[in-house]
């Protein structure tokens, strides 16, 4: 038995060594969206790979799952429309910046990958921005909203969503002007996205003379009865800038259970017509309700088949992937696409329409020109109604 184990161990080591040795040359992915057996794409001359960095496993796998599904959809649709042969390579970051660094280096070391979708979290962008800049590779995020990301530290960074500096004050002012609370509870979920928004909103509330109770729960917590019990009759508004819609739904249920009359005001993470339907709530989002955009009807049908309970994190990733697909197709026209030609093509993106219901064009900082901010109200049937957008 023992000599066999030695033989086996040596063989395994040789296997791994062989695998590692071949990694620098051929780490193409099996996670392709082609479902036909031997690759039935029409034109073989525009072959490229795109990486996607998302929290595919980990505490917020629900978000990464959605983003991945939409990215796969985008690549499949664009391959069919443009006759390209683009494959998607997954990179699981678990929303952790150190893993994002590892995955980014993996993508940079893979010469086939020309651009990257993601990462999802603002802190991840901060960690990997310099790496992408050094490699001259573009990366487009569908959910990183921290304001300072486009201040110059990340020259190859683009985003298809608006920034916290727009969303935070807009939400806060809406609450002050339309809901007139005397006191409110604002709860962050201990992620950078949430604490950033909370940090922007609290001073605005305090300046308007509203008493603010700042609470904090981790995303793993699913019961909020203790927090809800603390809500006094004067607190008529609860601001929840969370990432997980299901938690907000539970918060609303706890409110109903304890007969508290509180209006929930949430941000992007709560936007999920199938997961968060507490009547009377307001949800602001950096992405539109694609079910309400007539031009997106076929996409919505496709999305419902792939990921029935999608919210707000999927469509912007679809848009980001689409931007990269188009840039690659554009770069292919003048020969073999390279990272720099794709970067240039992304900078020059000028899509008159998109899944987001608006044209896509980037300014010199990498922000989306005319990025809109949407506010929805949930009516008594649990349906989302657009209140305002700007």
């Amino acid at each position, binding site marked *: 038995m023992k000599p066999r184990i030695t033989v086996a161990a040596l063989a395994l080591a040789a296997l791994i060594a062989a695998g590692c040795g071949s990694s620098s040359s051929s780490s193409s992915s099996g996670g392709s969206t082609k479902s036909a057996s031997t690759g039935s794409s029409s034109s073989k001359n525009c072959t490229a790979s795109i990486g996607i960095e998302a929290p*595919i*496993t*980990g*505490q*917020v*796998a*629900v*978000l*990464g*799952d*959605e983003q991945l599904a939409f990215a796969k959809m985008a690549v499949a649709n664009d391959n069919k429309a443009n006759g390209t042969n683009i494959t998607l390579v997954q990179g699981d970051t678990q929303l952790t910046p150190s893993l994002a660094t590892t995955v980014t280096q993996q993508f940079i070391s893979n010469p086939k990958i020309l651009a990257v979708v993601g990462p999802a979290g603002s802190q991840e962008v901060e960690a990997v921005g310099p790496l992408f800049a050094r490699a001259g590779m573009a990366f487009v995020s569908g959910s990183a909203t921290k304001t300072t990301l486009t201040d110059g530290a990340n020259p190859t960074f683009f985003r298809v969503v608006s920034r916290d500096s727009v969303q935070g004050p807009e939400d806060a002012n809406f609450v002050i002007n339309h809901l007139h609370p005397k006191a409110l509870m604002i*709860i962050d979920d201990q992620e950078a996205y949430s604490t950033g928004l909370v940090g922007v909103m609290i001073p605005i509330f305090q300046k308007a003379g509203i008493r603010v109770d*700042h*609470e*904090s*729960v*981790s995303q*793993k917590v*699913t*019961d909020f*009865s*203790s*927090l809800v*019990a*603390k809500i006094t009759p004067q607190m008529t508004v609860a601001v929840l800038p969370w990432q*997980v*819609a*299901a*938690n907000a*739904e*539970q918060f609303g*249920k706890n409110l*109903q*259970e*304890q*007969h508290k009359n509180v209006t929930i005001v949430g941000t992007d993470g709560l936007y999920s017509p199938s*997961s968060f339907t507490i009547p009377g709530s307001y949800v602001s989002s950096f992405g539109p309700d694609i079910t309400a955009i007539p031009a997106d009807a076929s996409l919505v049908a496709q999305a419902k088949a792939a*990921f*029935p*309970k999608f919210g707000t994190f999927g469509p912007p990733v679809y848009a980001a992937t689409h931007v990269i697909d188009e840039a690659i197709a554009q770069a292919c026209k003048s020969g073999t696409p390279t990272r720099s030609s794709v970067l240039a093509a992304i900078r020059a993106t000028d899509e008159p329409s998109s899944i987001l219901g608006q044209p896509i064009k980037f300014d010199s900082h990498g922000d989306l020109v005319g990025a809109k901010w949407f506010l929805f109200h949930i009516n008594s049937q649990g349906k989302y109604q657009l209140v305002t957008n700007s």
Partner: protein
Amino acid sequence: MRLFIQELVNGLTQGSVYALIALGYSMVYGILKLLNFAHGDLYMVGAFVGYFVIQWFGGANHLAVPVPVLLLVMFLLAGGGVGALGVVIERFAYRPLRNAPRIAPLITALGVSFFLENTALLFFGGSYRIYNTSSFISFSTGIHIGVLNVDIVRIMVIVLSVALMIALQLIVHRTRLGRQMRAVAADREAAEMLGIDVDFTIAATFFLGSALAGISGVMAGLVYNSVWNYMGFTAGLYAFTAAVVGGIGSISGAVLGGLLIGLAQSFITGYVSSLYTDLIVFGILIAVMLVRPSGLLGRVQLQKV
């Protein structure tokens, strides 16, 4: 006053769920001295089983059977199914390591935990599954006297936990199987020499412990509505904490530990601030451990030479 009572109820509910998970954990721990990291994931499997039972009967909004039948089927299937899963895991992952140093099954348990969590992710995706309990058990059923607003689901959770704890105490102290369990926990070799079927006893312990985890998973789903594949991770950690703080191998200790954690969390969130809840709870638990080094109800370990 209203806040106090509400927090008390919240704490008891939360604590009861922790206590149930800790019960199963403590049983296995007492008999095998095994830190079963996969226990929280059994809880998750139970919660998923309950969810699929609801879907099988038509979904939360269109139930085809009366609610008591639904609940009965959920508890039985979750308890039995997860119990069986626990026995299978014990047979294939832990039995070969029964005589190995304690640290080896720790890693096997971790492996089982990774396996279960990510298999669930593979099968069911990352989306949260929602029980939507309020659709078939409305909030108006329950106790609503004056300032007290207690939903019937919470009452059921607390009552069921107490009932299960009493049942478990009876099993362990009054039945032959319980005697065998205590014997194996005290000295496995001696028990074997006395003719006790150790394999069967350990398998039975795993069955009971895992069934409890499964049932607590269903209860958590009913009260907290959200079910997703990583929910077992934190639950397992709390179960371990409650079991140790209450005293290793002591069933009532595990329950006490669970209730203590639940109540502490509840009251600190209510009266201080949720920002510092975790830190203060840790502080309290450290203080408890320093004051009572063998846990709240644990027996002082005799050091054998």
